[in-house]
C-alpha cells in the first residue's frame, strides 16, 4: 500500500517538476510547483513527519505560492521568448546537470546507513517532539529565524516603497 502511495506521489512530483521547467507561462510553472509541493507533502507523511507535512501545505503551498501568484498577476503575462543568444548554453547546462545526477546516483550506490537511534515511532515527528527539539536544544537558532524573518519583511517593505520622486 505504502509503495503504491510512494509511486503515485513520486510520479506527480516528477511530472510537476518537468512542468515547472517546460511551461512557457510563469503562472503554469507556479501551479506545477504547487503540484510538486502537494506530492512532497504526501511523501513527508509517509516518512512520519506529520508536522512538516502540515507546514508544507500551509506555509509553502499556501502562503509562498500565493505570493508568487500575486506577483505574477501584478506583473502581467510574460511574452513568449525567441531563441536566446547563447543557444549552446541550454545543451551544455543540461549535460552538466545530467552529470550531476549521475554523480548523485553513484553516491547512493555505495552509501552505508547508520543504524537508527532506537526511538518510538509513535512519538517521532509529532508536534510535541518537534517542539521539544525547537524549544530546548535549538532555541537559539529558532530565535535567530525570527530576526531573519524581520529583516526580510523590512527589506521587502523598503524595496516596494513609493519613492518621493515618483509622485
Amino acid at each position: 500500500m505504502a509503495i503504491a502511495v510512494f509511486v503515485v506521489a513520486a510520479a506527480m512530483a516528477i511530472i510537476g517538476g518537468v512542468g515547472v521547467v517546460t511551461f512557457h507561462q510563469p503562472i503554469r510553472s507556479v501551479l506545477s510547483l504547487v503540484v510538486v509541493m502537494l506530492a512532497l507533502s504526501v511523501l513527508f507523511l509517509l516518512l512520519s513527519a506529520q508536522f512538516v507535512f502540515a507546514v508544507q501545505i500551509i506555509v509553502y503551498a499556501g502562503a509562498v505560492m500565493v505570493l508568487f501568484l500575486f506577483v505574477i498577476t501584478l506583473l502581467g503575462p510574460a511574452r513568449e521568448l525567441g531563441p536566446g543568444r547563447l543557444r549552446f548554453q541550454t545543451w551544455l547546462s543540461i549535460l552538466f546537470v545530467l552529470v550531476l545526477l549521475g554523480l548523485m546516483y553513484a553516491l547512493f550506490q555505495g552509501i552505508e546507513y547508520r543504524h537508527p537511534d532506537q526511538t518510538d515511532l509513535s512519538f517521532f515527528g509529532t508536534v510535541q517532539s518537534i517542539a521539544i527539539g525547537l524549544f530546548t536544544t535549538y532555541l537559539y537558532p529558532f530565535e535567530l529565524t525570527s530576526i531573519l524573518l524581520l529583516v526580510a519583511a523590512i527589506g521587502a517593505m523598503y524595496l516596494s516603497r513609493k519613492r518621493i520622486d515618483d509622485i
Partner: protein
Amino acid sequence: MSTLNIGGSELDASWFLLLSAVLFVLGAIGVLVRRNPLVILISIELMLNAANLALVTFSRQLQNIEGQLFALMSMTVAAAEAVVGLAILVDIFRVRDVEDVDDLSELKG
C-alpha cells in the same frame, strides 16, 4: 541499502533520495536554462523542496528529529528568500519590462 518499514510495507530510503536528486536536478535545469527571472525563482524553490525531502528522509532513517527541524528552518529561509527576491523583481519591473535576466547584466562591471 536501508529499508524503512512504513505502514507494514518495506520502502527503501534510497528511493526517496533518488527522487530528491531528480527534483533537485530539474530545478537546476530550470535555473540554468530558463530566462524569465520569475521562473528562475520558482526553480530555486523547487531545489529547496528537493533538499527538504532528503533531510526528512535521513531524519526518518536515523529516527532523529533534527533533520525535520532543519527542514523547517530551510522552509523559513525559503520564505524569506522568496519575499526579498519578489520585492526586488517588482522594483525592477516598475522601471522596465524584463523578459530575459541577461538584460539586467549592466551591473556586472
